[in-house]
């Protein structure tokens, strides 16, 4: 990446970021393909694997102003063992919290395979002063977060100040140190698939380890078409530069059915190599219960009752 920047090409033009080409998006074709992938039927023999994968790639999330240490501890207990009655259920990939609660999650998850992810950098708007955003990222990493979710500066991006948006992600990556950096594009605010693709490229070139759809804090959330658009950007990036970037889908993912539709989209676009926690994540709070319900349906053969699963 650095060589691309070093040769002195403009950091961005309408169709390139730091020399990486950005092809326009065929919006109609994109939506049709995404819709077609979502009609793929999953046979019950594959369902079990799809449900387990959905759990293994899940970032179990709580991002509420009312979050307490006890609530985060309870969430961490579920992350380690999602179904107390069935030990064959794998742990989730990570728990995602606000920075102040990251130390609580680190304690609660010690000794487990579950990572701690913290949002930072003025989440969810990303419009705090840059110094305080960077300080927040460094604080979260120092507190033990192995993964940091920041937001793209949409204000700069949408004003055409691509260089500023890019530089801020570069600075955030430095502040992260060895921690993984996920950059949230908030696709619902970008307006067009071309913009989503441009933002994806910009974030990836700037050093994001993952690009992520949404904060979950605005009405518009992850859709199959935006997921496909970003997956195609990741595929372009890999083809043009060889750099491997992960995809995190978040916001509005509540049902097991959505989860396996997204698995089909990612698997078909990026290959099965992307269907691992290192390259693919589902950020969700209420998805886990539905996945457990469907898993119990496969096990017992009968439709389950939501009240029999935990409240959060």
């Amino acid at each position, binding site marked *: 990446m650095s060589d691309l920047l070093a040769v002195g090409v403009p950091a961005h033009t309408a169709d390139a970021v730091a020399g990486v080409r950005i092809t326009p998006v065929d919006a109609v074709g994109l939506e049709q393909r995404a819709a077609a992938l979502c009609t793929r039927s999953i046979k019950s023999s594959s369902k079990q694997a799809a449900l387990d994968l959905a759990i293994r790639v899940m970032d179990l999330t709580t991002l509420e102003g009312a979050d307490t240490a006890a609530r985060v501890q309870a969430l961490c207990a579920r992350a380690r063992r999602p179904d107390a009655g069935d030990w064959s259920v794998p742990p989730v990939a990570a728990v995602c919290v606000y920075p102040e609660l990251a130390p609580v999650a680190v304690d609660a998850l010690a000794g487990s395979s579950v990572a701690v992810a913290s949002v930072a950098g003025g989440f969810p708007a990303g419009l705090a002063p840059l110094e305080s955003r960077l300080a927040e990222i460094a604080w979260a990493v120092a507190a033990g977060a192995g993964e940091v979710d920041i937001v793209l500066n949409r204000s700069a991006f949408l004003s055409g100040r691509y260089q500023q948006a890019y530089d801020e992600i570069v600075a955030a990556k430095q502040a992260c140190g060895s921690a993984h950096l996920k950059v949230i594009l908030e696709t619902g605010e970008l307006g067009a698939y071309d913009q989503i693709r441009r933002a994806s490229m910009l974030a990836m070139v700037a050093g994001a380890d993952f690009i992520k759809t949404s904060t979950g804090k605005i009405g518009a959330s992850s859709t199959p078409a935006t997921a496909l658009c970003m997956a195609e950007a990741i595929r372009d990036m890999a083809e043009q530069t060889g750099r491997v970037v992960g995809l995190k889908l978040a916001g509005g993912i509540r049902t097991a059915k959505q989860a396996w539709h997204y698995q089909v989209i990612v698997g078909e676009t990026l290959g099965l190599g992307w269907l691992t926690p290192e390259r693919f994540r589902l950020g969700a709070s209420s998805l886990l219960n539905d996945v457990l319900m469907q898993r119990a349906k496969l096990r017992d*053969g*009968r*439709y*389950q*009752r*939501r*009240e*029999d699963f935990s409240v959060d």
Partner: protein
Amino acid sequence: MTERLAVNKTYKQFIGGAFERSESGRSYPVVGAGGELLAHAVQGSRKDVRDAVAAARSAQGGWAGRTAYNRGQILYRVAEVMESRRDEFAAEVARAGDGCDHSAAAAETAAAIDRWVWYAGWADKFATVLGGVNPVAGPYFNLSVPEPVGVVGIVAPDEPPLLPLVSRLAPVIVSGNTAVVLASERGPLAAVTLAETLALSDVLAGVVNIITGRRDELVPPLADHAAVDSLDISGCDSQQSANAARQAAATITRVVSASAAEQQWAAEAAQSPYLIDAFCETKTVWHPKGR
């Protein structure tokens, strides 16, 4: 003038307040007494049952949260809307199944409308009659209150198509339950028309869900569903009843069936506050009275 083309109604299922085809895309022919084709009805699948139960579940809190008086008003409204479509109902009843003459069909329709009115009146009274203050040996108020069980699955009797369905449905929803109804397999058309009146009567979306199709296919997933709290198997044959009762027991679902007296659909005995009670759970509260 050219001859007008026929505009035939598509008889769809009623799930979550919307008229929908089956998830499976299937339909089946519904024939009249003379074997003539009346229409194609939706042939529902177990996934339609699942969706209907989910709709009923999410509607239940809001429906039970309405005041008893308001539920009574809404049930009365169903009768009002049915009244304005009496002839349409009577024509559908006359053609369905083994068929009957027009006066018998009109009588059945009138009885079905009156049944809504009868249960509408009970809405704000049954709790007083079925519950109350119990005398206890201590300084306590001891109060018993009937509360709705939750989601009720109703396998409607096959014949006739309308009055038995209303007779089983009205006492279920009047107390605040929501229902998933498997309509008559032979004559489902009147049930779909009933759904159209429910949709116009301020009955909340999801309170009544009507599935049409094959009993043998639809009863097992309904009886087996853990989110169904009570099951009315009045329309099942003996084999279906036995299987449904066994499946229901696995998730502690209460099973109810119409008695022989209740099956005299037009008679007084087919309507009773105890039918409301059959789909209620009694909650008893002890409260210190003081001296």
